């Protein structure tokens, strides 16, 4: 029977290729090329580099992730986080300084489904006329 208080730690000098599955909390400071499936909470440390997807209950991100993140509860991006991929969660907290390129599907007030597709891109509008294109900045163009 696993100890509920135990935490699996992948230290910064460890590199793993493959999928990690865990029922307990996980902390990754090293490199992972593969997916992380964690039924509990995960911490992606500042030195961590993950090339793969994450399926977790909640995750605190301080390192680099190239892949999609699906959290049942919460994604917490600290200022050092770099995420290239789509995220889906029930709750989200983002600190200033993050690098994030991808799609986000976070709706705390509505029902958040883990398998929900990412937000569809906003339909492109026809190219604006020069006068319309200047809106929001045209007033300051003479500065």
């Amino acid at each position, binding site marked *: 029977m696993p100890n509920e208080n135990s935490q699996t730690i992948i230290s910064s000098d460890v590199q793993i290729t493959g999928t990690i599955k865990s029922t307990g909390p996980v902390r990754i400071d090293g490199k992972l090329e593969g997916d992380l499936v964690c039924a509990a909470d995960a911490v992606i440390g500042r030195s961590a580099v993950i090339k793969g997807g994450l399926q977790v209950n909640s995750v605190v991100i301080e390192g680099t992730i190239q892949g999609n993140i699906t959290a049942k509860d919460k994604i917490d991006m600290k200022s050092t986080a770099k995420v290239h991929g789509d995220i889906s969660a029930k709750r989200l907290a983002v600190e200033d300084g*993050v690098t*994030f390129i991808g*799609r986000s599907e976070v709706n705390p007030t509505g029902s958040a489904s883990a398998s929900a597709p990412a937000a569809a891109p906003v339909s492109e509008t026809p190219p604006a006329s020069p006068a319309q294109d200047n*809106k929001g900045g045209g007033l300051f163009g003479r500065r």
Partner: protein
Amino acid sequence: MSALRKSTEVDSLSLVRAVRHARTTGPDTPPSAPPPEKPPDSTPPPESKERAARIGRTALPPKNEIFCYECGYSFQATGRVHALLCPKCKKTLDQADYTIDAECAESVRTTGNIRLAAGGVLKSGALIARDIVLAGRIEGGTVKATRRIEIEPAAVYDPDLLAAQDLTVAAGAECRFKGKRLFRHIDVRGVLDGHFAASGGVTVHAGGHLKGRLQGPHLVVEEGGGLTAELEITPPGTK
């Protein structure tokens, strides 16, 4: 020749300069005077430093960025002035704050603030001000805020008629923009939908929801804020 200046009047600026000088160089002592002896256990009283810091913070007159609605020139004015003259076009600028709570069909231009109250209707003309709060109805004309525009829940408007540097969507308000819009800072407490590019920071507060697309260097999402969007957040200096 003595470098000392004697002043019979002490204004706030002189006080600030004196405090800053004292903080950087320490207290003035005559060159011939022996250095003060310190008791071995004595420590400088912390109150004096705190007081100096407080004076330095509070006594500085505020600097206001003024945007001339006549010629478009931008300049700074320190403190409060009775009459504001644009240094470029030499025209007197209105500094008053206005509240529109009835039908309005004329232009209102000021370097102050305008509030279009819940019962206010803008039929035509232009509203130009530093900060504009929209809680009424815009049926025609244009609205340009040289700094910030705030949209409240009761506002009825066409987003194409709005222009501002900063955008604030108040709690409970829903705001949908068509096409790509550029802002400096965006504050979301209600619902904001559209394609945005921000040169400054974007903050989604708890209870707020940002939808659509967003490009910019800074993003902050408070816990409880919603984000259903395609994002490209790259802080300056990162690739």
